[in-house]
């Protein structure tokens, strides 16, 4: 009975989403006030019903109702309760339900938090969000219903959740990443509403900005959680593989990052408006494209969902309708948009445009790199693979101008920057960055490589320019200390986000250039040394978990004779699916990770082991934490919420 209620609430939510699209639009057309105002109510009702459906599915997982096919496939009586709850989004059907559930949260949030906006605009935005929800509801109900029963059969037990997914990563990564994906629908809807209305102005950019920022925060955290999860769980210690599914999350991020910057310019200076609208459309389109790639099986990926052609066909049709019509609408309406701001070639506007150009180029690289294998095969040139060697090479080229400009842009003024005025700060930063780079490499590098020099320098360059800029702005009117305190949240946010980016560059550089990987054979009692570290294989112990058995290895680690830690890598065999998995032991550190994975036991009793020394790998995830925190700071900037409108009317003086 309960699954049927779940299905019923889902159907009701579907109907409501359709109503949420049609009725408010009708109201906007005819001027019917009731219909216009209904949008908010309908959005909230829709949220209530889909939440009910989501809670019901969660409950069914909690009580392990194996008469529901989806639960029989993805749960088991031995599965711990927290993984049972996370298993709701452990496979295709439930993860789609999560998707619409999150979409309804964003929709409801727009409905509740847009009191300052004209009701017609909000009605349009909600109508578009409703339409998106409607498409996904149809998709779930027609092709991927999680409430389908196995009846009349009643399985005794479930097939269990895929062992690889039984990790803290499953609990946190998908909801947060999806929150980001789905959140991009809000700036998308704002953009479409503005195009429909024919009012692309600074106010539109101002409304979109916090929503874009919020989605971007989730996306940033979601992606880095995914990277961290792959590193800690999958047993081969990689943190990014350039797999199509990873690319599918990276592409919206690139564009969302560009969008944040160009919304800033559009809001403050009233320029780049059609470009900004285009980015807003693209960001969400790419997140839809990602959904298609992940769920249709057109590309070979490590972590794809189970797929059926009907599903792929449905999403493709949805994609064509939503993205195709948006892009056509854009072409028709954006041609009438005029930018009136004036700025010169050396100005903050221009530099932010350079940032956008480089991000767009990066996007094209990832997009082509992801889709070209498909095209290549279809036009008869044969199957190819595009992977890490290609992407790493081209990204290490693109990052250079990107980081250099990133350092300069915050120092530049809006409208016009005198080049001479930039010379002093830049030369100072250059000197500081060079010294810092050499010091850093002297302390942490084992040998010299040009790539490492370049990477670390770029990071240090960003650090030093960010620091320099902060001092400069702080001392503009006050002493350094009071000046720093007086700087607004959004200024700190910018500096912090840029510093976070520098942290990531340094992390990637160090990991790529100075990692040490050893595949070795070790018997109990033996030890191996490298990089001042000594690993001793003390022994093994049997392992017994809730739903798995296995072996734990015990390793004692010393550095230069001092005890560091004891590590316990595991080799598990999950009882239900009989799948052996490797649970690597990781000793995290600020400047290095130690990583041990157990292979197999050899006939002579020794074990094959993989031991990694990964310098600065944590920085790859610290950076995004900085960036996300910066985003949150920006959202809570009071100045940004109230005063900025005034500065817009003044037409200038909107320096950050």
């Amino acid at each position: 009975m309960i699954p049927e209620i779940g299905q019923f609430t889902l159907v009701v939510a579907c109907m409501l989403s359709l109503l949420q699209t049609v009725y408010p639009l009708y109201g906007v057309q005819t001027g019917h006030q009731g219909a216009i105002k209904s949008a908010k109510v309908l959005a909230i009702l829709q949220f209530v019903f889909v939440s009910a459906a989501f809670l019901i599915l969660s409950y069914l997982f909690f009580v392990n109702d194996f008469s529901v096919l989806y639960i029989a496939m993805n749960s088991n009586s031995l599965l711990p309760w927290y993984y049972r709850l996370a298993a709701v989004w452990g496979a295709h059907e439930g993860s789609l339900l999560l998707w619409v559930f999150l979409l309804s949260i964003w929709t409801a949030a727009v409905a509740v938090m847009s009191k300052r906006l004209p009701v017609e605009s909000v009605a349009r935005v909600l109508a578009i969000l409703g339409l998106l929800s409607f498409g996904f509801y149809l998709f779930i109900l027609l092709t991927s219903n999680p409430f389908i029963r196995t009846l009349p059969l009643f399985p005794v037990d479930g097939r269990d959740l895929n062992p690889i997914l039984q990790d803290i990563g499953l609990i946190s990564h998908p909801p947060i990443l999806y929150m980001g994906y789905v959140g991009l629908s809000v700036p998308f809807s704002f953009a479409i509403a503005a195009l429909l209305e024919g009012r692309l102005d600074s106010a539109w950019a101002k409304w979109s900005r916090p929503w874009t920022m919020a989605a971007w925060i989730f996306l940033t955290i979601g992606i880095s959680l995914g990277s961290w999860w792959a590193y800690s769980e999958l047993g081969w210690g990689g943190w990014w593989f350039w797999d199509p599914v990873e690319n599918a999350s990276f592409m919206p991020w690139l564009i969302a990052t560009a969008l944040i910057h160009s919304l800033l310019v559009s809001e403050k200076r009233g320029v780049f408006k059609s470009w900004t609208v285009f980015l807003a459309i693209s960001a969400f389109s790419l997140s839809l494209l990602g959904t298609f790639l992940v769920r249709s099986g057109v590309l070979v990926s490590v972590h794809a969902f189970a797929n059926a052609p009907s599903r792929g066909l449905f999403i493709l049709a949805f994609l064509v309708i939503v993205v195709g019509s948006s892009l056509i609408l854009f072409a028709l309406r954006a041609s009438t948009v005029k930018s009136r701001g004036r700025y010169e070639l050396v100005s903050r506007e221009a530099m932010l445009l350079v940032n956008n150009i480089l991000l767009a180029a990066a996007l094209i690289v990832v997009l082509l790199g992801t889709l070209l294998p498909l095209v290549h095969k279809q036009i008869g040139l044969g199957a190819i693979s595009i992977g890490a060697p290609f992407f790493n090479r081209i990204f290490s080229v693109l990052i250079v101008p990107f980081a250099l400009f990133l350092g300069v842009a915050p120092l530049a003024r809006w409208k016009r920057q005198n080049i001479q005025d930039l010379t002093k700060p830049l030369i100072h930063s250059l000197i500081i960055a060079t010294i810092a780079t050499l010091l850093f490499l002297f302390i942490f590098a084992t040998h010299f490589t040009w790539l490492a020099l370049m990477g670390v320098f770029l990071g240090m360059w960003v650090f030093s320019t960010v620091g320099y800029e902060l001092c400069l702005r702080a001392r503009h009117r006050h002493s350094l200390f009071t000046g720093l305190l007086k700087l607004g949240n959004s200024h700190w946010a910018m500096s912090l986000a840029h510093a976070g980016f520098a942290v990531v560059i340094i992390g990637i550089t160090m990991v790529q250039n100075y990692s040490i990987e050893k595949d070795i054979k070790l018997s109990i009692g033996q030890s191996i040394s490298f990089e001042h570290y000594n690993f001793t294989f003390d022994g093994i112990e049997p392992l017994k978990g809730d739903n798995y058995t296995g072996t734990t290895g015990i390793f004692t680690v010393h550095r230069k004779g001092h005890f560091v830690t004891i590590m316990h890598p595991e080799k598990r065999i999950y009882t239900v699916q009989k799948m052996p998995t490797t649970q690597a032991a990781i000793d995290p550190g600020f400047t290095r990770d130690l990583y041990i994975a157990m292979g197999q036991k050899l006939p002579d009793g020794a074990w094959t082991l993989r031991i990694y020394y990964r310098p600065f790998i944590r920085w790859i995830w610290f950076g995004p934490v900085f960036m996300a925190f910066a985003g949150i700071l920006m959202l809570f900037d009071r100045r940004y919420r109230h005063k900025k409108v005034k500065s817009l009317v003044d037409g200038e003086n909107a320096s950050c």
Partner: protein
Amino acid sequence: MLIKHKKRIFLLMPALFFLVVCIFLFKGLFKDPHRLVSTRIGKTVPEFTLPDLFQPSKLHHSSIFKGQKMLLNVWATWCATCYAEHNFLNKMANSDIYIVGMSYKDDRTKAIRWLKDLKNPYKITLFDKDGMVGMDLGVYGAPETFFIDSKGVIRYRQVGDISPQIWREKLSEIYKKME
């Protein structure tokens, strides 16, 4: 006016690009991205010497593929699809199609028992214990079936099983065309 027209065309570019991408995505839906076309098509079978499955001392040279058109079926007892396919291979052998078998990365006794139990459709059965000849042929799974003409040139590779349906719809045509 002309400028505006130009601008509109320029702004339509993303939509066009998107449509082209969608066409490829649509086509991609109906193709298995895991299927690879053999690199050996149009080339003669690479040179090798392999023992016979039944008589380890008897060696076969790759010249056995010359003289008449034939199929080379790569199979293994660990492969479930091979089991599904076996019956039809027997039928083809009965209708005078010359099939050479290659036992791929398998256990000799298991393979011999398999052929005794399920009947042997192969005129010659090669034994590729470590899969190295398989690697030379670009085999990446079992079953795979190579269509080889009388000059010893590979004309087609079927990845996955040969079912009566695939044979009727596609493969028999390829087989007939070979000389």
